[in-house]
């Protein structure tokens, strides 16, 4: 219900925007829809985009459900991709299943490793994890740049900063059209994380700590230990996103391997209200909007108008869901009472 109203508002605002920019809204909207959800091929592209968005969003949401901000998913994705690419380099002659498994495990390790520093600093010394994770993005970017410009540069790349193509057995199998196996990996990880947070004792402690650190201490939950595991886990999930993106979509390590997914993941997680269970749906919508938004640029819509349009749809559709949880109070008091959503 709220979703529909929000979408309608977004489309209306978008119409005004497109008319103002001199475009035919109907033509633009139908192209957006066709390119993202119109046929199985379009679905495949959208799903491939939703996979890294969903995993990055999950990474941020895991930390967020404990009140921590992992702003470093972007760098952790790169670290995961680097680790996976490294395994592919040394294990080029391994059988496919073993190679891919090893790559993804390495990706998890790489992302987790990049989060260890901020996690320890936060848990032991109380250093703000927002700053440290953000700064490590820069480190990961430079590392990728150095690798693809230097030691890992493909001699056949005509001097472009690209690592060599992955061997065929290092690529994820496809499910249908171009949709790759990463979809099932992401779905499984999101389900596992949602179940873990909702139904396990570990998740219970996480939710207590996220709701009130003082209550966690009161009941004997060790906060430093929790902070450490949660931040490293968050980094590991982001790292997995990097590995899946490398082996599923990119097929080679490039400077732009993370493609902003780590930052988009923050938006995904925030719109999912930091709930792992909400990440999948948001990521799918986000993916569809991104793919649709990119497609209309071929119709002469400038990239900035396209980006604004994407933002309208995202915030209209999901933001409405967020606001429908509040009740407007008109008695002059500035308190709005959060209510459990009825939908």
């Amino acid at each position, binding site marked *: 219900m709220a979703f529909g109203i929000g979408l309608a508002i977004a489309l209306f605002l978008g119409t005004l925007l497109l008319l103002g920019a001199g475009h035919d809204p109907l033509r633009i909207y139908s192209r957006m829809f066709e390119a993202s959800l119109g046929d199985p091929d379009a679905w495949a592209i959208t799903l491939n985009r939703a996979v890294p968005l969903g995993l990055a969003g999950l990474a941020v949401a895991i930390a967020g459900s404990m009140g921590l901000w992992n702003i470093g998913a972007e760098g952790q994705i790169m670290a995961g991709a680097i680790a996976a690419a490294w395994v592919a380099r040394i294990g080029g002659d391994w059988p496919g299943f073993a190679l891919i498994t090893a790559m993804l495990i390495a990706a998890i390790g790489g992302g987790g490793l990049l989060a260890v520093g901020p996690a320890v600093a936060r848990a032991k010394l109380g250093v703000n994890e927002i700053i440290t994770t953000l700064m490590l993005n820069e480190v990961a970017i430079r590392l990728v740049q150095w690798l693809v410009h230097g030691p890992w540069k493909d001699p056949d790349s005509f001097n472009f900063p690209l690592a060599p193509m992955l061997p065929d057995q290092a690529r994820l199998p496809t499910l249908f059209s171009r949709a790759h196996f990463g979809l099932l990996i992401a779905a499984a990880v999101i389900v596992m994380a949602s179940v*873990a947070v909702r*139904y396990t*004792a570990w998740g*219970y402690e996480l*939710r*207590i700590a996220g*709701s009130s650190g003082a209550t966690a201490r009161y*009941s*004997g939950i060790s906060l430093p230990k929790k902070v450490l595991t949660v931040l490293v886990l968050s980094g590991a999930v982001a790292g997995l996103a990097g590995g899946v993106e490398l082996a599923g979509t990119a097929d080679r390590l490039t400077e732009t391997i993370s493609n902003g997914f780590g930052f988009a993941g923050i938006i995904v997680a925030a719109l999912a209200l930091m709930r792992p269970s909400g990440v999948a749906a948001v990521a799918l919508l986000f993916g569809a909007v991104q793919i649709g938004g990119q497609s209309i640029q071929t119709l002469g819509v400038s990239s900035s108008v396209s980006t604004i349009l994407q933002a309208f749809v995202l915030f209209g559709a999901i933001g409405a869901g967020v606001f429908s949880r509040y009740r407007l109070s008109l008695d002059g008091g500035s308190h709005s009472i*959060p209510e459990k959503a009825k939908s």
Partner: protein
Amino acid sequence: MTQTSTPGEEAQLSVELAGIWKTFPGVVANAGVDLAVRRGSIHALLGENGAGKSTLMNILAGVYRPDSGELRIQGLQHQFRNPADALSAGVGMVHQEFRLIPSFSVAENVVLGAAPSVIKTRQIERDVAAISHKFGLKVEPSQPLWQLSMGERQKVEILKVLWRDAQVLILDEPTTVLTPSEVDELGDILRRMANDGRSIVFISHKLHEVSGICDEATVLRQGKTVAGSLDMATTDSDELAHHMVGTSPAIATRPEAATPGRPLLELRNLSADGDRGVCAFSDVNFKINSGEIVGVAGVAGNGQRELADVIAGLRSPSKGTLMMDGTDITAASPRRRFQSGLAYIPEDRLGVGLAPRLSITDNAILRVYRQQRRGLFILAEKAMAYCSEIVSRFGVRSGDLNGPIATLSGGNLQRLLVGRELDGEPSVVVASQPTRGLDVQGVKAIQDLLLDQRNRGAAVLMISEDLDELLTLTDRLLVMEGGIIRAEFDPGTASRHEVGMAMLSHAQVTAQS
């Protein structure tokens, strides 16, 4: 604005509040309060916690709007819609929590929110320096705020109000953040402002400070004025304390004394620091025996909260030993303490005892979720069954048990929390402000539960600001003031007045003993 007062105007009133009423949902904070403050005087507003002092001052400062009543400043009637209205009428408030920006300089903080569109730093610093020189507020205008002590920050807050040319200054418990020598200095500063023709309203519940600083005093109790504009020169602190705590006899009959058994909780030379690293309490020694309720009386902020936290294991003592039933638990974790039979009902219910954003069930199982696991999972049915048992046994009125805890009313929150803590038949119960803010039924229910624990043979520590409650329920009553156990009373024979005096002024107790 008002010029320096001429002798003829001196007797005039700068603040007149008449018949002020203010209710919040379920609470009457002010029930027809009157207050009159003479121009050029320092006026103390006294009262126990919850007497309505802060509400009244927030009304005077334009933060709250009264339900009814009249408000006159310098003889003119006003209806303030917001603090800016009050400021333009010359009323400024220095709140207990400072509203300052650490990275800004003193001068920038002073003009914050009222700065001219072009900020001439030098000019402002000179203006601020002039005001601080005039009233003896020693701070350097160009110094960044983060370098300042709490006492200096308070001076910045006072400067903020003076820079806006307030003629009436309200200081909400200004001495809580100050060292004794800073308190003396504050007294001098306030005197200079009064001599300049300004009026100061000084909110406090510390009698010995008030008598040194203030000219007049008004005492509030339970939302009403019980004594207006007493002349401090002719009123002794005995009389003030009498007004503050009242003389109402203990209403309920005392429960039969139980026969105390062996000591279950023992504190030996226990000391601990507060949040700001200053000593919160020192060398506390007492024992609680099986079948005994020991009460700790005291005005908030005298170390009771920290004492409860140390016993529960949420704060490390700086010194001393804590024994439970003969075992040293000084270093035990909160979970270990609970498992060995120590229940803790914290003062902060939603936020320490209960997790605000989780469901009723999630909160009910906080102490026992580890026993409801199968493998990694918490068994939902088991958790639910446990929660409904607590809910029915302790009379928690609730809707959906999977609904958010915040849907429960204050009394039901406390029943759930107390029920959860008492469910495992603990041997020691620490209850901090267990009945604060509850309605009559809720108070009775919680008090009965604590008495049941005593009669069952548990050792109960009850920390409260409600003297009547302590005198009625406890078997022994300790008074804590300034982080020290000042006195011990037998609640059966002690008078409310005696205990109140010990709570309020250290000086009086030493004089008596």
